[in-house]
Structure formats: structure tokens, C-alpha cells
């Protein structure tokens, strides 16, 4: 990538972010709430794709980290009289440590072990947390009372999105990103050319855990009342995977292409046919695997490439 196109894409990114930051000026109520959902999933799906995109390791741990973030804010403020911001600072560190530990336990092995481990993780942490609450702390639900509005949280998430995009942009250019792409193409080759495959994977996975826990913490005031069954809902992990794959993980801006339509679809389904949301998720997975293996972005790029070839 040349120096000039770098600067160009940075400028484009900055303009789009500024536009996104202006949404609270025009939207209110219902639309603000949808914008907040979109911002949340943009951060989650993009940071998910940073790790899972190049390596093809499907992580289903997003809900676990997100839940840890939200739950820590809840328990910190309700049970230990902490402020909101100190908890927001602690939560992502806990998320990162958790991701690091899971990473060193599972990422040395083949990808299947990792998927299986993350599959039940959110549910496992939920049962643990419920058990601790029932037996030791007593309270089941936790209150997060702040004077932050949805628009405030939205702005924080847009800033976080900007940070994630910058980090992703930097990783793609760095040796680490290069290493990850080789791992994704052929892990044996990567090991033979001297890449420490486990370390590279663990670093990126830790980063995604950090971000997911931070999102969970930041968005906690939106729900006011935090309950383990709510924040550790495993569905979140699957939605993030669908959104990222639907958009395409080949490009940094791929996931957001999937986030916006799928968030709107979800909103529509939940409002009108809430019984069918699981079925819709299932169909979405099947559509991606059979018709959009490289996501919408991959499909568009493919179409452009064939068109260019035929016009020459």
C-alpha cells in the first residue's frame, strides 16, 4: 500500500467518523437507540474480525467478555460503591486477562478446540456468577445508575470505534498482521518460516477481549438493571459472528457493511415476529456459508474484478 493511499483512506475514515458523531444532532428517541445498537455492534464485530478474519478462528467468546464488562460495572457500583468510570477502567483489563488465559490454554492447539471452548464460555460464566450471587453476595440484580444519556454512550462508542479502526489499520501494516495472514493461509507454513503462531494469535485475541469487555462496561448504563441472564446472553456472540461474516472480514471496513443491515433486520424481527429471531439467525448463517462465503464486500470486489477484466 502506498503512502498516498494510506493518507487518503485515513482522511476518508476521519470524515465518516465525524459524520457518525453527528448522528445525535439529528436522531432522537427510537432512532438514537438504533444508532447506539449499531455503534455497539460495529465495535464488537470489527474487533472480532481483527482476530477471526485473518486467522479463520471463529471466536464465540464475545458474549462472555461483554458480559464480564457489564457485570463488573453492575457489581462494582451496586455491591462495592464504586464509581462508574473506575469500573470502566477495570473491566477491560479483566476482560483482557481472561482472554489471555483462554488464549494460552486453547490457541496452541487446533482451531476446533478453540471454537468448542468459546461455544459454552458465556453460559459457563453465567452459571458461575449466578451461583456466587445466590450463595455469597445475595443480590440477584444490580443497578447501574448514571446520568449518561444514550447520546453520550453513543459518542463514547464512536470514539472507541475510531480507536479500533486505527488499531486495525496499524495491525494490518505491521509484522503482526502479516504473520496473522500467513497463519490464516497455512498454519504449518507459518510455523516453518519461524512465526510464533501462538503468541500472534493470543495478542489479537486478548485485544478483542479487551474491547468487548470495554463495550460491555460502557453500555451498562443503557440497561440500568444488570442481571447475569441478560448480560451473558450467548446470542450476542452469534450475532456478532453473523454481522462480521455477512459484511466480510477481508477488509477492515467489511464488518460494518454487515452490521447496519443486520441490526435493522433484527430490530424489525424483534418488533414484529420475536418468536422467529432464532430461526432468522439460523437462516442467516446458512445464507452466509452457501452464498456469501467472503461476505458482501468480498462479493462486490469479485464482481468489480470480473467487470474490469471483461472491459479490457
Amino acid at each position: 500500500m502506498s503512502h498516498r493511499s494510506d493518507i487518503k483512506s485515513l482522511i476518508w475514515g476521519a470524515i465518516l467518523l465525524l459524520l457518525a458523531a453527528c448522528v445525535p444532532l439529528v436522531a432522537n428517541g427510537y432512532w438514537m437507540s438504533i444508532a447506539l445498537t449499531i455503534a455497539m455492534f460495529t465495535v464488537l464485530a470489527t474487533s472480532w474480525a481483527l482476530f477471526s478474519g485473518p486467522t479463520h478462528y471463529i471466536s464465540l467468546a464475545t458474549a462472555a467478555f461483554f458480559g464480564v464488562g457489564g457485570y463488573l460495572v453492575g457489581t462494582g457500583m451496586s455491591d462495592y460503591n464504586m464509581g462508574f468510570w473506575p469500573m470502566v477502567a477495570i473491566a477491560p483489563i479483566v476482560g483482557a486477562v481472561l482472554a489471555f488465559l483462554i488464549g494460552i490454554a486453547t490457541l496452541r492447539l487446533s482451531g476446533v478446540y478453540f471454537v468448542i471452548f468459546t461455544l459454552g464460555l458465556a453460559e459457563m460464566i453465567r452459571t458461575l456468577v449466578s451461583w456466587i450471587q445466590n450463595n455469597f453476595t445475595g443480590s440477584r440484580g444490580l443497578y447501574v445508575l448514571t446520568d449518561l444519556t444514550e447520546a453520550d454512550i453513543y459518542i463514547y462508542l464512536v470514539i472507541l470505534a475510531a480507536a479500533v479502526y486505527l488499531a486495525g489499520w496499524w495491525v494490518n501494516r505491521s509484522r503482526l498482521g502479516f504473520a496473522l495472514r500467513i497463519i490464516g493461509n497455512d498454519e504449518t507454513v507459518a510455523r516453518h518460516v519461524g512465526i510464533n503462531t501462538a503468541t500472534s494469535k493470543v495478542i489479537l485475541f486478548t485485544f478483542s477481549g479487551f474491547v468487548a469487555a470495554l463495550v460491555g462496561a460502557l453500555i451498562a448504563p443503557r440497561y440500568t438493571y444488570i442481571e447475569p441472564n441478560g448480560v451473558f446472553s450467548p446470542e450476542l456472540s452469534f450475532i456478532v459472528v453473523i454481522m462480521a461474516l455477512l459484511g466480510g472480514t477481508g477488509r477492515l471496513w467489511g464488518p460494518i457493511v454487515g452490521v447496519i443491515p443486520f441490526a435493522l433486520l433484527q430490530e424489525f424481527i424483534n418488533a414484529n415476529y420475536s418468536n422467529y429471531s432464532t430461526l432468522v439467525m439460523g437462516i442467516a448463517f446458512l445464507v452466509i456459508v452457501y452464498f456469501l462465503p467472503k461476505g458482501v464486500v468480498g462479493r462486490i470486489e469479485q464482481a468489480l474484478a470480473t467487470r474490469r477484466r471483461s472491459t479490457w
Partner: protein
Amino acid sequence: MDIIITGLLLGGTYALIAFGLNMQYGVARIMNLANGEFLVLGALAAFWIFLADAISPILTMLIVAPLAFFGNWVIYKVLLRPLVRRAKNQGQLEVDSILATFGMSFALVGIMVSIHGEYFTYSYLAEPFEIVGETFALNRIVAFCFAVLIGGALWLWLYFTRPGMAMRAVSVSTEASGLVGINVPRMSALAFALGGAVTTMGGTLISTFITLDASVGVIFTMKALIIIIMGGVGDIRGAIVAAVILGLVETTVARLIDPGLTLAAAYAIFVLVLLFRPQGLFGRRPT
């Protein structure tokens, strides 16, 4: 004593479920994450038929097994075979099959919730039965016996017949068994269908003593996967030992600490296996 026998009984049924998934992953090379949903389908069928006509779940198995066999065979042929053909390597196939079976599992959950959104509660053979001076529910013992019967029959088939041998050959190496004239696609389809049928029967058995609901399948998939990894992929002996260990540990935790912590206990075992014996209990370390 009570805990040990209950754990053993539970482990037997777990072994049967893991057997089903082992055929699908070990032979057909499909990481089937919709496996637990077939288990729940088996339970739903038992519940439904029992409520409608009071037909014993054991007889229901006779209806459920061929249906599940056929259903899984169609799924393999229509949905999974194209993925096998498309995949350039095992890693790609794993990613694709994981995503595709996720899709199926959610679709199945969605359909089952719309059929019956509550718990599948029914009571079958909930009578006391005495072994060495302690009482157990008869349904647990009957389920265990049938799990042993089905598992034993499969084992005999795998180890003492020609198709069984062909199937074991495919599980060792798809390329090599293709070279010696085994019809690999056909064997894979058969293994997938058979595995699905076994898991579904396991679900019917489990539903006699555990109350299930439409969305619980993923927990059983998780447990079956932990058993397979602990036992070593394709290793039947290992899977049985692993299933019994899981059954014992879960029962111990449920009795002595809290029934809500069984999943956490399963995870603890999983972490230990991953850290110390990722190749399985009896597996050899790859060189």
C-alpha cells in the same frame, strides 16, 4: 456409593451421545454443532408420542431412529457434501461445517420452539429400584441398559463386519481408504446418518429422566465434544472412559455443591484436558 452409581448411569447415556458425534466428526469429518438439537428432537418425539398415545419412549426409539437416520443422510447429501467438495483443506472444511451446522442448529431450535416452547415434562418409569441397598429411579437404569445395548451393537458392527471395517478405515485416512477402493463419500454419508440416529436415540433415552426444553441442545453438544476431546477423536474406548468421568464429576458436583455448577465442572475438566492431555486420554502425542 449413591453418587458413584448415579454418575455411572449418567455416563453411560453420555457415552452413547458422544458415540454419535464421534461417528460424524471422526469418520465424516463434519464438526456437527447441531448434534445436540437432534438429541432434543429425539426427546421431543418421545414427549409428544408419550403424551398423545402413552407409548413407551423405548418403542418411540424404533420410530425415531430410522427417521433421524434418513434426516441426517439428507442433510449430509444436500447441505454438507457441497462443503466437503468445496473445501481445499481440512481447516476450511472445519470452519465451513461449523458455521453451516450453527445455522442448522438455530433453525432447528427456532422450529422446535414454535412447536413446543415449554419444558418436555412427562413421567415414565419413575419408580424406585434397589441396587446394593440404595434406591434409584428405574428410568435411569433402563436408559443406561439401552445405551449399553445400542452402543454394544454398534461396536460389534464396527469391529466385526466389512462395512464396519471400511468405516474405521475412512476414519484413519480418507485418501488412503479411497485408494483401496472404499467409496468414501458413501461411507461418510452413512457414518453421518448413523451418528445422527444414535444421538437422537440417546436424546429419547435422556428425556426419560432429565427434563429438556427446545433450547438446551447446545449444552449437550458441548458435553459430547468435551467427551470426544477427552477420549481422543475416533477412540471409542477413550470416549466411554471420558463419558463415565464426566458423569461422575457432574453428579458429584451437583450433589455436593450445587446442581447449577455442572457446566462449570465440565469446563474445569475440559481445561485440564486441554492443558495436559490435548491428544486425549489414550492418545499418543503427535511427533
